[in-house]
């Protein structure tokens, strides 16, 4: 299968290792990765902050670039949620039926990385080896937005050598929320404080998630506190081998 990688501007710029990990796993599983180089940003930050007029050209641009691919895979649950759910909403509120039709066709071919591996390919064991104590934070967009279910945990549990510890009150938001983290920084930190406490309670070395944006928030506090816990995207754990 040809898999088009929707890297997201955020991962492209700040977390390139996540993209490299996705490429290596998909190729390891016998599929071909294509990277449409015209892609930039899906418009999530603009749209969710209220800058709809500015987001619309980015939405149309994304649809044009990706509509030709059979499977589109992204290591970001929130950007996938933007394309799958909010693009429809954006087309509706702007009364753009042509866009709405294109989005409907595109949306069902856009996968978050872990749901692509588990649900589309039907694989839990990707042949990874990671001898570390790991906990997993289900991000809001992966859990309640696009509903990836326990796909990430299935993948983690199949990793050899891993010491996987579930997180207490894992379903609760970490407080990132995009521009919420700076517009409501105090509340955001109050939420993050509890998340960090639960992570430290696991005694894990690594906190894993399916979204680097939330991880940047969590990791930003873990590093500020010199906690000795690091963050890693799920794909980076799965890419690790003996």
């Amino acid at each position, binding site marked *: 299968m040809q898999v088009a990688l929707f890297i997201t501007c955020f991962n492209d710029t700040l977390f390139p290792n996540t993209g490299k990990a996705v490429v290596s796993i998909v190729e390891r599983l016998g599929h071909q990765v294509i990277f449409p180089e015209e892609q930039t940003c899906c418009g999530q930050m603009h749209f969710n902050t209220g800058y709809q*007029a500015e987001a619309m*050209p980015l939405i149309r641009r994304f649809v044009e670039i990706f509509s030709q691919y059979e499977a589109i895979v992204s290591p970001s649950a929130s950007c996938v949620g933007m394309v799958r759910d909010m693009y429809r909403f954006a087309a509706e509120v702007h009364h753009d039926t042509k866009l709405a039709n294109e989005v409907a066709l595109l949306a069902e071919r856009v996968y978050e990385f872990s749901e692509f591996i588990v649900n589309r390919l039907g694989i839990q064991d990707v042949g990874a080896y990671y001898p570390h104590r790991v906990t997993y934070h289900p991000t809001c967009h992966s859990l*309640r937005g696009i509903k990836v279910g326990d796909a990430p945990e299935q993948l983690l549990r199949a990793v050899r050598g891993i010491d996987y510890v579930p997180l207490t009150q894992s*379903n609760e*938001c970490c407080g990132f*929320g995009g521009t919420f983290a700076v517009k*409501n920084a105090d509340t955001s930190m109050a939420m993050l404080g509890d998340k960090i406490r639960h992570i430290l309670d696991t005694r894990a070395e690594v906190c894993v998630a399916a979204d680097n944006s939330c991880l940047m928030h969590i990791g*930003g*506090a873990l*590093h500020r506190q010199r906690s000795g816990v690091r963050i890693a995207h799920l794909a980076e754990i799965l890419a690790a081998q003996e």
Partner: protein
Amino acid sequence: MKKPESVIIELAPRFEVGAKAAVQNTQLRRNMGKATQTIRGKRAGVVDELADWESLRVAGQHIKDDVMQHLDTYLIQLEATVTQSGGHVHWAKDAHEANEIVTRLIKATGSTEIIKVKSLTTDEIRLNEALELAGITAIETDLAELIIQLAHEKSSHILVPAIHKNRSEIRALFQKSMNLPDLTDEPKELAAAARQFLRDKFMSVRVATSGANFAIAETGSVCVVESEGNGRMCLTMPEVLITVMGIEKILPRWQDLGVFMQLLPRSSTGERMNPYTSIWTGVHADDGPQEFHLVLLDNGRSDVLADAVGRQTLHCIRCSACINVCPVYERTGGHAYGSVYPGPIGAILTPQLVGTAHADSLPYASSLCGACYDVCPVRINIPEVLVHLRGKVVAEKQTQPQSWFDGENLGMKAMATTFAHRTTYELAQHAGQLAQWPFVHDGYIENGPGPLGKWTAMRDFPAIPAQSFRDWWRERQRDE
């Protein structure tokens, strides 16, 4: 542009300002954390018992969709059925009109005191304040409302208005205001003190006011759902009953109650069945109030109805499940929202009732985590409405000349232009990699400039790696 005078917003600070103070209040954090976690667990327990919960939610949503679609018809029908059964119907376009009607009706009875059933709608129109100006004393009979009234505070939760107070705080309040120096903080004793205080009023006051949870267009029946029985006293003992109801509270048929009597108690108090459900149809000789008035209140609701996306906000049955599950509300409490309606539902309802220009910080009082949408018994897509309202806030802001000097607006526009082309986007990536060097130490930025400073004031920011993913990809393609 609408003016906020008629409604809700106390000249409250912006959400983030109120929230900053609230998250530093250790007693509040402890009280709120404990209360919300407990009620969340209770709700989840009784909801999980029902195999058809999702079907019930869908049924609730469909009934409310139908109500909004034909609200005009159902309202006229309700007016007719209530009138036929001996009640009087009054129409109020805003808070001012509603307060005038209620004041006039009470004055006609000659009474200077009224007893009140807990009611958000009368809080919304600030009925108590209007009555006070007219020389009428309103006595709240719901325990938590009474606590708030005695403490001269504002409610911080729609169902449990005194959620921000613990029992030792309530004990101190009762000791002082009821002159009971020996009162302990035992819940039983506290409740008994309130009961003693209220009993006299139930026996003597001749006029009561209430809100309404539901009104049935088909039969003209009005329904109030409560837990203490104090509401039942107010609805049955006095001679005159005045009910103020938002126009969206209507249900078409008697049988529709069956859906909501399952959805509401499980979602709100985490109970399988509601303790005191009072339903009355007009007046009956020698039984209950002999005079019944129903005030139908608009107060911004028709404007909400006119908005195709925002309309679903009117589906709300005020259960408070979204408030209890909200991680933002849990930390800030209700007062930060500056409205009778706090939490996620408040963040979408308040700006629509008073106009986004007067509550422009509320649509941003959410991390869009979606927990509210998951628990909403009538499936209001709160995150979607929040994003929709943010769009309105920004669009309004952009019509103002000062937006040309607004950092966020300029930054967002600049970024949108950058993202419009691959070349400018890649140029910006490389510029970022170079420009960050004075601020990077050991792979992190701990004290960033400009807008980044708002992030790094509280957490570290990872340095931009020297090679972007796309540059790595191109290098790899070349090497192959």
